[in-house]
């Protein structure tokens, strides 16, 4: 059950996307998002979908894994759909009951929003799926330094540690959960109050262990003379390769095309 959480999970592989420089992937993701929010027509999603399909194919990540990543967000998507259905009043009325009505425009907008959300989540997931946490934060640190964001190293280090500990804490949660289930604890049945109460035997040991781990980690870092980012060198230097150039070129072309289409071409309007 807890293993379904795929936030920040890495999918091992040697695909084109895996081998790209993390900075390339982060910047390209940003450009992709800009393109995604530039699109205003449902029909124009056709070529966005095609482009996204190519990215997914290049990542070597199976669709099943991606779909699993969307699962925790289904509530948000359904909510988006429903809200747009009822809150937009455009076009012909399809269905009406007292003050509630669904219009053609509302349906279109709802579907549009959900597709956009799904694409956004999927491509963002691809970033963490094809980049190891260490490389990801390395890339972020370099980008933040370029943008003169203060404490870039500290922020990146915090992020690395947080990402690194997600699976550890999930494992720990499962372990403690099992230990308490073996003692007769019940985390599944009962009302909301009973469920909340049943979490106490899980959360207290979890907090204690998280603090203990943080303490141990701080001690271990200090013992290795960690003293922040100043003067710190790296074993593996990030370097742009030919593939990164191609990736940038493709994404920039895509973004330009989307903007041109929205402003002048209006291919699908």
């Amino acid at each position, binding site marked *: 059950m807890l*293993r379904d959480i795929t936030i920040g999970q890495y*999918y*091992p*592989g040697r695909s084109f996307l895996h081998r790209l420089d993390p900075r390339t992937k982060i910047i390209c993701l940003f450009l992709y998002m800009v393109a995604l929010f530039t699109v205003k027509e449902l029909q124009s999603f056709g070529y966005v979908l095609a482009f996204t399909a190519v990215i997914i194919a290049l990542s070597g990540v199976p669709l*099943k*894994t991606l779909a699993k990543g969307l699962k925790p967000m289904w509530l948000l998507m359904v909510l988006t759909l429903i809200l747009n259905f009822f809150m937009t009043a455009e076009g012909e009325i399809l269905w009406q009951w007292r003050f509630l009505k669904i219009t053609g425009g509302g349906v279109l907008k709802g579907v549009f929003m959900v597709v956009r959300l799904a694409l956004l989540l999927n491509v963002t997931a691809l970033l963490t799926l094809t980049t190891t946490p260490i490389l990801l934060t390395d890339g972020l640190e370099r980008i933040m330094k370029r943008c003169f964001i203060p404490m870039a190293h500290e922020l990146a280090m915090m992020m690395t540690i947080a990402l690194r500990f997600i699976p550890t804490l999930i494992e720990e949660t499962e*372990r*403690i959960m*099992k*230990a*308490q*289930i*073996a*003692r*007769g*604890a*019940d985390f599944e049945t009962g009302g909301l109050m009973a469920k909340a109460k049943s979490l*106490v*035997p899980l959360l*207290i*040991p979890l907090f*204690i*262990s998280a603090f203990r781990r943080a303490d141990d980690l701080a001690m271990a870092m200090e013992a290795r003379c960690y003293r922040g980012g100043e003067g710190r060198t790296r074993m593996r230097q990030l370097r742009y390769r030919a593939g990164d150039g191609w990736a940038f070129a493709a994404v920039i072309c895509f973004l330009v095309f989307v903007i041109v289409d929205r402003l002048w071409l209006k291919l699908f309007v």
Partner: protein
Amino acid sequence: MPIVLQNLSYTYQPGTPYESPALHDVNLTIKSGQFVGLIGHTGSGKSTLIQHCNGLLFPMAGQAMVDNMAILPKSKDLKEIRRKVGLVFQYPEHQLFEETVALDIAFGPKTLGLDQGEIQRRVRWAMKMVDLDYEKFKELSPFGLSGGEKRRVAIAGVLAMQPKYLILDEPCAGLDPKGREEILYQLKRLNEKGLAIILVSHSMDDVARLAQRLVVIHQGHIVYDDAVRQVFGKAKELEAMGLDVPEVMKLMMRLKEKGLAVHQDVLTIEEGQDEILRVLGHA
């Protein structure tokens, strides 16, 4: 009426790149009252195996039964199965959460829906079983205790469910020699009172001393399941699996190499002493 595992197989995260088979076609029967040692290298499938015994994991193939109740995901007997088979995980002190020792031990019995008097009685009994003085410890916070005491509180928390089978995963890991001795002695006493015990351990000396039967698991297969003496007779095979034989047995093997005609199948220091004296003609 025993714990029975039949042709049981289990794989972690099937269908993902993280897929890892853990158990293949395992057959194992644990009769009540037995003291069974379970040994295997790290990652051999020991933990997976013991979690099948009380329904924390469900077999992907084959079946698991406790006292004729099948272990199935939605079974109504699951609660009863988990009561009958007590499971003490590695570092069980990590599961402590209550304000006082007595309250923490009472957690298990409370979930069984017992009345206050019975809960009290069980807490006292469980604390006595692990040699914790009720009056002295009941009001203390479990987080202020020493490592060995914490662990005994955690074991008492499982004992208070009054299981018929007790499974312990490395109950002595990280304890000082005195703490180890105390826990092992208490396990022996509990077994003498009729509780079946499955002891997962990396210490060959401990299982040699306590267990009657030894199960060796390697890469998800049960390789040996026999009397302790028989299993430790296969020193070479065990070594190939990254396992070992008891220290005193190693001593006997060395003595034999040096030309002293001792029997090698000794398990405890006392036996070893007698054997050496016998050969030297002092017995």
